């Protein structure tokens, strides 16, 4: 593993921490005051800062640092996390996410915004109440290239003299200690017992000290009591050291950095008068040889004699009397003895139990593994090929083995089942909860609410609903746009809401659930609902419908999905980015999904999206149309029927209806609409598939014959060829031929050409 891989891990972890951060802040926002929530939030920022520091991502570090400081105030109860405080923090979380992304992808961030937030965070940490956000209504993501004159009084940046400081930790390390004239220091070092208790070792400190220069050492054993009254955990020795070094006093003190609280330490320049003042007993300077500390050096006889030397301690291990030479050794021996005594006493049960517990902990701690997505995709592709291959095999066996009872046939059936199970299991690997996308939406809501001056609460449900990762990835964009729309167009201003007797705070509800093999995502707002008169008028103005068209409420509502349709009187900065609901609808359709709207005036609108759980396979009905093999997604089909001549009714010049249980349903000849043939086939010769399209009601699709029902592996047409209107994708059948998968909604929409002036004229495109 190299640094780049670890960096990638870091960014993955950042994503998780950011999600953790946001959900924690949102919980706090909902009144959660669990200290663990605050801790988790703090840790998230702390973690990001720690990793960022290791990679030298200074912008990220400095912002995270300020954020962390403020969070620490909350953690220590010095700052009450009220709504205003949390508002700043949620925005800061957004900026932190931006900074992380910028660090990963090298993009730019809105520096003015991050500086503003640093200021706000610092103000919070200093106990200043957050200012109501009136002065800065638009934290507009202005491109840094064009600094927009902010409405706030003068650029706040200079006001306080705040400027980003390039802070490099390297400076501290790179700076070599200035060369100092070699001088001799007299050092007194008297460890306390705490020094040993914390795992420090006088020997090691002396070793480090000796590396600074020429050292001679004297061990003061005056306090050593008789062996019988010796406390094995006490510290009895002190050392007087004379060190000639050019590194300076700082370097000497830094050797004792970890120990300075747990010892008496006196460092003084010898001042040339090296022989001593006479107050102290005459010292015998002993040359200190570092190598003697090494265990590998054979015990020299000289060391044993010079018992007062600290270097003796290594050899002293063999000798009970001289073992007392240093307190640390005594301590170590006492511990070893006790440990061995204890382990003897309960050796078997403790160790095995501890091991079992450790193993259990290890397995509990790692219930998941991380797998590169490419590997999963490769597996899925292979399984796809396996499914096709298995279908081919089945087909040729059936063709060659007509009685259908051979053991080959039996085996094939089992193979089919196994293949299916493998496929399901592999698909499950790619399934992910929609949570990350939902979490991203809360940021969108905050931003739009800020820009529009509306007060909005986002409620999410079913965040743990799982769906294929590709679907999740592609869901974010349309969902973002819909959320923007819901807040910008759907919800009223607080004043209007109050006037309508509603809570001034609007609610946007985002839910996900599984329903009959698909995932259904609902986006509901409690706003004003769709103004049908306005929509209708707009559609007439834009030449989308005839002025006298008779449309149901539902059909009017669905008009907003048409290209170039925007009901906002003036195009707002938020939703009117040239992206309309038609684009949303198309991206949902591209995912094999459907979108539908229902709206109640004064009560709000609900957008319902229904998406397949996976984009890799599809249960389909294989049909024949004008000698072409097509696949119709099974989910779209309500029922199939053989039309009788008496049930077919002509309507207008070319329209035909079929009566099904006393209701009429338009007949759509798939062969005609895809331009497979010039004249409509006789419905009586074919089969009708009653399909339901999202928002478009029922249609009966006429095909020539049904071949059967089968699971097919979806191969994208867009990726391999180009988009074909009316066709969702392609697949490879058991006989090796390519079959096209019908886009039922597009077919139904095209068949409605009479009511709607078609922007997707399929008849011409097939």
């Amino acid at each position, binding site marked *: *593993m190299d640094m780049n891989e670890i960096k990638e891990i870091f960014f993955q972890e950042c994503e998780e921490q950011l999600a953790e951060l946001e959900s924690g802040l949102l919980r706090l926002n909902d009144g959660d005051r669990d200290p663990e929530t605050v801790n988790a939030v703090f840790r998230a920022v702390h973690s990001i800062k*720690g990793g960022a520091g*290791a990679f030298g991502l200074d912008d990220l570090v400095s912002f995270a640092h300020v954020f962390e400081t403020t969070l620490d105030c909350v953690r220590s109860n010095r700052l009450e996390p009220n709504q205003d405080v949390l508002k700043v923090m949620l925005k800061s979380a957004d900026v932190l996410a931006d900074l992380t992304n910028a660090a990963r992808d090298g993009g730019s961030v809105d520096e003015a915004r991050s500086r503003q937030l640093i200021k706000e965070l610092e103000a919070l940490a200093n106990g200043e109440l957050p200012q109501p956000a009136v002065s800065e209504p638009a934290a507009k993501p202005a491109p840094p290239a064009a600094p927009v004159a902010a409405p706030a009084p003068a650029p706040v940046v200079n006001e306080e003299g705040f400027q980003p400081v390039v802070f490099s930790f390297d400076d501290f390390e790179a700076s070599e200690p200035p060369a100092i004239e070699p001088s001799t220091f007299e050092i007194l070092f008297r460890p306390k017992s705490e020094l040993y208790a914390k795992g420090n070792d006088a020997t*090691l400190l002396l070793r480090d000290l000796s590396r600074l220069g020429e050292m001679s050492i004297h061990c003061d054993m005056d306090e050593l009591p008789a062996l019988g009254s010796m406390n094995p955990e006490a510290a009895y020795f002190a050392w007087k050291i004379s060190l000639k070094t050019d590194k300076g006093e700082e370097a000497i003190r830094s050797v004792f950095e*970890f120990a300075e609280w747990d010892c008496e330490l006196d460092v003084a320049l010898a001042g040339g008068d090296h022989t001593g003042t006479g107050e102290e007993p005459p010292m015998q300077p002993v040359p200190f040889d570092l190598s003697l500390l090494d*265990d590998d050096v054979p015990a020299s006889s000289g060391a044993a004699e010079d018992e007062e030397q600290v270097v003796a301690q290594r050899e002293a291990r063999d000798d009970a009397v001289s073992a007392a030479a240093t307190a640390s050794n005594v301590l*170590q021996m006492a511990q070893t003895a006790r*440990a061995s005594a204890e382990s003897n006493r309960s050796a078997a049960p403790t160790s095995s139990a501890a091991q079992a517990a*450790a193993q259990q902990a290890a397995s509990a701690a790692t219930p998941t593994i991380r797998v590169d997505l490419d590997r999963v995709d490769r597996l899925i592709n292979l399984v796809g090929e396996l499914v096709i291959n298995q279908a081919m095999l089945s087909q040729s066996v059936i063709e060659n083995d007509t009685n259908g009872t051979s053991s080959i046939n039996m085996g094939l059936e089992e193979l089919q089942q196994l293949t299916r199970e493998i496929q399901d299991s592999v698909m499950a690997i790619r399934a992910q909860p929609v949570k990350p996308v939902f979490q991203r939406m809360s940021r969108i809501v905050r931003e739009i609410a800020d820009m529009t001056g509306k007060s909005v609460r986002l409620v999410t449900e079913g965040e743990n609903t799982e769906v294929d990762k590709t679907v999740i990835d592609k869901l974010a964009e349309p969902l973002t746009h819909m959320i923007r729309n819901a807040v910008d167009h759907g919800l009223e201003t607080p004043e209007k809401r109050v006037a309508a007797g509603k809570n001034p705070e609007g609610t946007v509800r985002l839910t996900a659930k599984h329903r009959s093999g698909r995932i259904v995502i609902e986006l509901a707002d409690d706003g004003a609902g769709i103004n049908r008169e306005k929509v209708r008028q707009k559609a007439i103005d834009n030449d989308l419908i005839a002025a006298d068209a008779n449309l149901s409420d539902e059909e009017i509502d669905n008009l907003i999905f048409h290209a170039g349709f925007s009901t906002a009187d003036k195009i707002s900065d938020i939703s009117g980015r040239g992206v309309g609901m038609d684009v949303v609808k198309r991206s949902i359709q591209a995912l094999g999904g459907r979108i539908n709207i229902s709206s109640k005036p004064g009560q709000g609108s609900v957008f319902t999206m229904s998406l397949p759980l996976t984009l890799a396979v599809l249960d389909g009905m294989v049909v024949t149309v004008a000698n072409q093999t097509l696949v119709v997604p099974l989910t779209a089909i309500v029922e199939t029927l053989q039309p009788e001549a008496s049930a077919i009714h002509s309507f207008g010049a070319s329209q035909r209806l079929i009566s099904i249980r006393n209701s009429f349903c338009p007949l759509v000849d798939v062969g005609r609409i895809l331009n497979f043939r010039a004249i409509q086939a006789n419905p009586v010769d074919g089969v009708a598939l009653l399909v339901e399209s999202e928002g478009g009601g029922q249609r009966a699709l006429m095909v020539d014959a049904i071949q059967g029902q089968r699971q097919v592996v979806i191969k994208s047409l867009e990726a391999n060829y180009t988009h074909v209107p009316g066709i969702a994708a392609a697949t490879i059948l058991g006989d090796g031929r390519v079959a096209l998968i019908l886009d039922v909604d597009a077919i139904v929409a095209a068949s409605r050409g009479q009511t709607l002036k078609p922007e997707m004229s399929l008849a011409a495109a097939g």
Partner: protein
Amino acid sequence: MKKRVLTVDDSRTIRNMLLVTLNNAGFETIQAEDGVEGLEVLETANPDVIVTDINMPRLDGFGFIEGVRRNDRYRAVPILVLTTESDAEKKNRARQAGATGWIVKPFDPTKLIDAIERVTA
């Protein structure tokens, strides 16, 4: 013989950095994700030195150090604290809990190895 280092850190990034750095420097590395796991694996890890983070879920570094020091077998094993804060208060608390020394983040391989060598024979 290789020295065994037990590292305790909840950040996957830092865990990986510790692992790479320590393995490159010739240490045997055992890793835990928080204080609770650290104490659980202590006996089997049987470390010569411990490196621990402070801010961790379930059991933080202070609690972990205290736990190690309560274990007679490990009460003198050197413990180094990884800390982003260089402020005296954090160090002091870590010391009181029984930490031997500290390594101030940002994570730096040289500093880490230096500190470990300082507290181990």
